[in-house]
């Protein structure tokens, strides 16, 4: 990679800076929708494609380092590009290309902040995410991390005149900063007494096992808070729906992955060799998060909240994989560790594509109908065929159905789980295979959720008369959706190449010398022919051929006569849209089975009610168990400390004096 004049790290940094420039250009005419939509967002999409391309080839190269003399004196910015950051940069570039393209058609005037300002925040968000992935010292990492948090905060609160959105933004900012403090402390532990905050120094530092474990726990908490790991997930279902859809897509698809990147960087690179038992923590939290997220997703009636909870589920699956990789690495089973790590990376890339696609789909629906409530949608496949069919790709992918991409990564993770019984630790080798059962349950529930999402929004009869006026998405929006849908298909059909490419990451981390996959380019074998194979291209071909032959045979051997009539519905003649299953109804079995998860308030009508009302409110139990007592406690402490604020300047001067005295006492 270092050969020649072409440096992918420098190119990548320049491109990321380019995003910043595009954002700044938005300020030239902040009120102009045309400038942002027609020029800046498409430009941003182009930069995204370029970043993805550079990162794609950068992954196969070596590591590169760069020191930029900007910022504070004696604190230059260290940048480093390697396979791990390359994979995430590719994810950022490729997903954001589709999202920006969509944004070119989506953002319009009169929706909160001025378009130029939005453009600045949006591209600053992109650039800061990129630099988080490249940062090679704690200072620049934290600066970019905070820039990312702040710019996304402003994006979430675009429509800041709505009180709910303001409070969602506050919650997001609060938890983002709790996480940031933990990350800061984690870096503080990892410098190991050298007081050097470059990542190189941290790699070289030798920590005692106890301190290393503390650093890992800090990282898990800090990055887990950003990723939406239960119980730090509460901000996610509030903030994602509040943001404009392209921003939701970026946050869910890309930003959550920067947290994953941070955790991987700390545990596999900076801390060096993790102890096997660390991995049990992410596995336990991950599995719980996966089930918790998907169960709540099934109970939602707001389509963006539903997707936000589904993101929590996917983060759970990803963290489970991270834990599994740590356990395998800790006991020295490096091949399986790299298999689990590749599954994690694969799922991260997949999720970026499919979740962005779904969030953008909801954006189109929102603009076409003005509705986010599933109870007021329906039948949109007739009015919005483009959005519906492209969203269907994302729906099938995230439901984990072959031959699309969601299936491949879950398949890899299950294969890794299947080998967990070989771990030479008693109990763990028996309990871990059971984790596969929970992953399978989460995947099956995800299919349930996605059937609900697609069925209620796009199929059936329109639940409101106004839906008859819904229009399909514009060309920019269609292109954005198409880009992401094609990504889902390509990632699903070419797993071998993707795995070989992702295999550079464990190789560069020194886990293995070569990725033991791939007997041939269309044929995927995870571990050295011992297990099984999966060839999605052949698989797809077989299905397509069968369907095609059936279609041909049925239509040639028999007649093709078709007649349209009113729906039969067992002979019931006065069918109307209100008789279809609602989102609440479709979630009812889940509410019934997983009752202990929910805080449920129900009002049922009595037979004598003149105006019967049925009302059900679903709350997050963790909110009540963990957060409300915490908030009350903080409030109480703050009230107790309030007497310090006497409001007299003499008292405050006394405080300063006492503080000075105490500090002097320390020094002397």
């Amino acid at each position, binding site marked *: 990679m270092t050969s020649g004049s072409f440096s992918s790290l420098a190119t990548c940094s320049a491109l990321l800076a380019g995003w910043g420039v595009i954002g700044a250009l938005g300020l030239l005419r902040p009120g102009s929708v045309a400038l942002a939509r027609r020029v800046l967002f498409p430009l941003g999409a182009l930069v995204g494609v370029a970043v993805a391309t550079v990162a794609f080839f950068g992954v196969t190269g070596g590591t590169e380092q760069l020191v930029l003399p900007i910022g504070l004196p004696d604190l230059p910015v260290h940048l480093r590009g390697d396979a791990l950051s390359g994979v995430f940069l590719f994810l950022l570039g490729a997903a954001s290309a589709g999202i920006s393209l969509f944004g070119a058609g989506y953002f319009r005037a009169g929706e909160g902040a001025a378009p130029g300002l939005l453009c600045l925040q949006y591209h600053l968000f992109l650039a800061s995410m990129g630099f988080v992935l490249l940062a090679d010292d704690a200072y620049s990492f934290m600066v970019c991390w905070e820039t990312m948090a702040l710019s996304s905060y402003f994006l979430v609160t675009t429509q800041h005149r709505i009180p709910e959105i303001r409070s969602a933004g506050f919650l997001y900012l609060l938890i983002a900063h709790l996480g940031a403090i933990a990350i800061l402390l984690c870096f503080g532990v990892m410098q190991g007494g050298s007081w050097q905050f470059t990542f190189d120094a941290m790699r070289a530092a030798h920590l005692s096992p106890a301190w290393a474990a503390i650093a890992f726990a800090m990282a898990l908490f800090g990055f887990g808070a950003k990723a939406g790991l239960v119980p730090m997930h509460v901000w996610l279902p509030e903030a994602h729906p509040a943001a404009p859809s392209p921003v939701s897509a970026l946050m869910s698809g890309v930003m959550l992955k920067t947290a994953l990147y941070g955790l991987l960087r700390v545990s596999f690179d900076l801390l060096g060799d993790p102890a096997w038992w660390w991995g049990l923590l992410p596995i336990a939290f991950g599995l719980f998060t996966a089930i918790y997220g998907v169960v709540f997703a099934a109970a939602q009636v707001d389509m963006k909240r539903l997707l936000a909870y589904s993101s929590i589920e996917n983060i759970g699956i990803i963290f489970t994989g991270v834990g599994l990789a740590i356990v395998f690495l800790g006991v020295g089973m490096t091949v399986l560790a790299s298999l689990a790590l590749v599954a994690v990376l694969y799922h991260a890339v997949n999720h970026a594509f499919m979740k962005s696609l779904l969030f953008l789909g909801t954006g189109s629906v929102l603009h076409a109908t003005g509705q986010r409530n599933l109870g007021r949608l329906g039948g949109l496949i*007739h009015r919005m065929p483009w959005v519906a069919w492209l969203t269907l790709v994302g729906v099938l992918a995230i439901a984990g159905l072959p031959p699309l991409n969601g299936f491949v990564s879950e398949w890899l993770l*299950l294969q890794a789980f299947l080998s967990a019984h070989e771990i030479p630790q008693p109990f763990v080798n028996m309990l871990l295979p059971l984790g*596969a059962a929970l992953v399978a349950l989460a995947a099956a529930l995800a299919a349930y959720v996605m059937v609900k999402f697609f069925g209620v929004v796009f199929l059936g009869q329109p639940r409101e008369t106004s839906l008859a006026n819904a229009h399909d998405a514009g060309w920019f929006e269609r292109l954005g959706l198409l880009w992401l849908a094609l990504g889902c298909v390509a990632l699903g059909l070419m797993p071998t190449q993707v795995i070989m490419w992702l295999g550079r990451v464990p190789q560069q981390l020194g886990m293995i010398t070569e990725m033991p996959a791939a007997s041939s380019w269309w044929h995927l074998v995870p571990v050295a022919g011992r297990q099984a194979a999966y060839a999605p291209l052949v698989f797809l071909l077989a299905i397509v051929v069968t369907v095609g032959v059936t279609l041909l045979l049925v239509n040639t051997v028999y007649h093709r006569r078709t007649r349209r009539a009113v729906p039969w519905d067992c002979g019931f003649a006065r069918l109307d849209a209100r008789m279809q299953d609602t989102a609440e109804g479709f979630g009812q079995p889940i509410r019934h089975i997983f009752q202990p998860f929910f805080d449920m308030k129900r009002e049922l009508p009595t037979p004598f009610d003149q105006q019967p009302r049925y009302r059900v409110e679903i709350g997050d139990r963790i909110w009540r168990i963990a957060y409300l007592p915490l908030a009350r406690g903080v409030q109480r402490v703050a009230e107790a400390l309030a007497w310090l604020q006497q409001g007299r300047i003499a008292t405050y001067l006394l405080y300063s004096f006492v503080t000075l005295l105490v500090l002097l006492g320390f020094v002397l």
Partner: protein
Amino acid sequence: MLNWLTQILEVLAALLAAPLFIGWVNQCRAWLQNKSAPSALLPYRNLRKLFHKEAVLANNASPFFRLAPYVVFGAMVCAAAIIPTLGTRLPFSNAADAIALVGLFATARVFMSLAAFDVGTAFGTLGARREMLVGFLAEPALLMVIFLASLISTSTALPTISEGLATRALGLYPSLAFTGVAFALVLLAENARIPVDNPATHLELTMIHEAMLLEYSARHLALMEWSAALKLFNYACIGFALFLPWGVATGDAPRPLALLAAIPILAFKLFAAGGLLALVETVSAKLRIFRAPEFLATAFLFAVLGLLVHLLLGA
């Protein structure tokens, strides 16, 4: 060459035998219930009749509604191509292992449920909801069964599993006994049989599978019915592959005789399994829909128990 022949023969056998298997189960059930039994060939006549009819579509049916029967049918045919019913050297089984097989079933289920949503009738959506409910409970249980089998034979490819199980020393394996029970429960639930669903009724309180097909007619309905028959056939054959793996042509060397012998053996297994299924359906009563999760949780627990027994005892 013989491998390809086996593959084609298997798919053809599945396509042709599946309706007969359903007919045989129905016939047995009628006998057991003291009714005058329909011919076992009735499903063929039914399919023929349906293919000849004019298709009636609801006014607001979308293209998805018309596409779904073909996808469901295609998925079931592909599933039949993966399962070793006659021989274990199947060229197509390299393309998809047992996990992908579960994925295929899930694909069919999702398409069917979405199609049930499409017209927007009360029954269709109700059926879709219940089908997904049964599906998300049954799928993990089925995966656990497959996991145990693949732990024993260190492969997730169904033919390899089957071969590995067939060549083991004969004996009673407690882990397999547990998962066998789990698999039987999953089979009943996934194929809309009593006690989870009743294939013989159109009463809205009891139906799951039939509710989803109410808006289908003619060729679309024929494909859906045929797919349902194929699904039952496939599940029965998965059961044979895991728990009765004997009599299937194995080994690399092509042995036409073994292949020929496999056909009557399969027929006999199906004959016995059909009778057994009819017996189970006759002696058990339909469960309330919210007892179904308990039923499937039992299946799941049995599968997990089997896995634990295997990991603890290695048996």
